[in-house]
């Protein structure tokens, strides 16, 4: 956290300050107190979870605040191998990785065609995509179970991947549509004059130009897919589990075999990678949020 503080120190502190009134200082102080309280409410549970992940069950019950007797990785080893968190982690990486690449590619392709070409039915397709954003995913889950079962894709990672792709498509298309629409058309025109076909124009010119938009959408898709729970528990209940699923299964067993230390370790393993990635990329992500709202 100290690292963060340094990183985010204001750049403009050298500029001349207007004299602040006592009222200003009071407001600033109050603001800092309120924001600090909220930050504590956010951070303390996470730190507590992290600390508890090194404790034995006995230590956890003895005192919720005491530091672990020894900072051993036993709980992590247990969670990673015995509870299957390791395998699930790898499954998650595969499923989310492949889905993300596919949905970004297919979404960009679809958004590009819809944004740059007008043809009969293009409007209908766009509205259909919007509809997918508004309907609750729950409505589709039960019939989807039947669809995947019919295709023999139930409880299989490829089935999960294609479902992830399908459900992340509307969001992706919706945002990239606006992005492609705003890219200057002259460049595509120039490429066509220079003899580049549609394929080449897209992959060599338009796609690289859309990189900032792609990055924003990819970040949100990643978070959405990595955190996805409902889709895997519905259509992959009997398949190789992904992380959120395995974590849930692990917590459910807890009623019988009490190993809270390992549970905390499992939660930590789930949380840490994305949290670290977020801290590294937070500037870009904050930018993405504002980009998403400005249109």
């Amino acid at each position: 956290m100290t690292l963060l503080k340094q990183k985010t120190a204001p750049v403009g502190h050298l500029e001349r300050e207007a004299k602040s009134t006592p009222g200003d200082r009071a407001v600033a102080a109050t603001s800092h107190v309120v924001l600090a309280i909220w930050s504590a409410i956010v951070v303390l549970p996470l730190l507590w979870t992290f600390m508890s992940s090194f404790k034995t069950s006995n230590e956890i019950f003895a005192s919720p605040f005491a530091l672990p007797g020894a900072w051993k990785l036993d709980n992590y080893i247990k969670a990673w191998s015995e509870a299957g968190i390791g395998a699930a982690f790898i499954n998650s990486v595969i499923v989310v990785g492949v889905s993300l690449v596919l949905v970004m590619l297919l979404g960009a392709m679809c958004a590009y065609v819809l944004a740059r070409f007008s043809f009969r039915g293009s409007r209908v397709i766009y509205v259909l995509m919007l509809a997918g954003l508004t309907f609750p995913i729950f409505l589709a889950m039960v019939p989807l179970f039947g669809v995947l079962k019919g295709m023999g894709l139930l409880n299989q990672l490829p089935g999960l991947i294609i479902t992830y792709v399908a459900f992340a498509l509307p969001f992706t298309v919706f945002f990239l549509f606006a992005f492609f629409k705003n890219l200057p058309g002259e460049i595509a025109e120039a490429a066509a004059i220079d003899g580049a076909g549609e394929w080449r124009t897209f992959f060599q010119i338009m796609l690289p130009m859309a990189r900032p938009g792609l990055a924003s959408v990819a970040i949100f898709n990643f978070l959405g897919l990595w955190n996805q729970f409902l889709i895997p528990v519905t259509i992959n209940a009997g398949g190789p589990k992904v992380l959120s699923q395995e974590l849930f299964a692990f917590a459910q067993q807890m009623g019988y075999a009490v190993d809270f230390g390992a549970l905390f370790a499992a939660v930590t393993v789930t949380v840490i990678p994305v949290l670290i990635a977020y801290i590294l990329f937070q500037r870009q992500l904050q930018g993405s949020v504002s980009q998403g709202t400005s249109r």
Partner: protein
Amino acid sequence: MSLPPPTAVLEGGRKAAIQSRRKNLTFDKVSFMAVFLGIPLAIYLVFVIWPFLQAFVYSLTDWSGFSPNYKFIGLDNYARIFTDDQFLKALSNNVILLIIVPLVTVVLSLVLAALVTVGGSSKGQVKGLKNSSFYRVVSFFPYTIPAVAIGIMWGQIYDPSGGLLNGALNALGLNFKDYAWLGNTNTAMACSIFVIIWGFVGFYMVLFIAGIKGIPAELFEAARIDGAGRFRTAVSVTIPMIRDNIQTAYVYLGIFALDAFVYMASLFPNAGGPENSTLVMSQQLFFTAFQRGQFGMATAMGVILAVATLLFSGLVFLVNKLTGGTDGGRL
């Protein structure tokens, strides 16, 4: 692999190229459209649109999900759902969530966003609070954590004997020894709502900060010259200027409150909470389909959920419109 230099094209080539691009359906263009539109659309239609459409049909049948046979039973499923006490209990729980979660989350994140953006000096250029990006970064943490992990973590925090909450309260001398926050009908729902809000405030705070930063600084300066204080500025300038963002936030949070599956499932491993005080419709749908094997009934619940979602979104848009929104949204 760079493109041929522009000099390779003759003067008249430009017009011809554009025309041929518009008129002639070359193989290049046809294959391009077919692949670029065809593949994504096929996946989308098969795995999203088709199940949505099927849902409406299945909701009128007694399909079990496991045998291929079913028969149409009209609106029987709907009639039975609305006389099912457990579903009605779940519905009322969702309504509680729908009323409280969006309101508290939006208000709290607006307050925090306002503190960050207008907490600075009242002299000179309008500035945000100094050193505040730390809060913004930290508040966003929960959004990066899978909801399942959030639910399990808070389940442990609320734990009667080893949890952080009772530990803290007992350390403060308050006697909450072994109070089961999630095991008691009085507190289970309130505690779950807190967890959901904890998970969402940061994201909307960042969203609102972005919105507020997008407001032209002259507006704030004008308000200040006119003698408006901080509170007045927040109410009369900030909120009207970002009301579209607030509306979006409200709709998303409402849709979420009507679902709430992940949080409730992971907070209460023994589904439903004490005396079903935290049972939500989505959980009921899930059990009906995958534990009782009543797919027809479950899809009918899904349709009800969808209708509720649409009604709620419509209501938010209507309220925003009636209170004079949209025009004030952007300049």
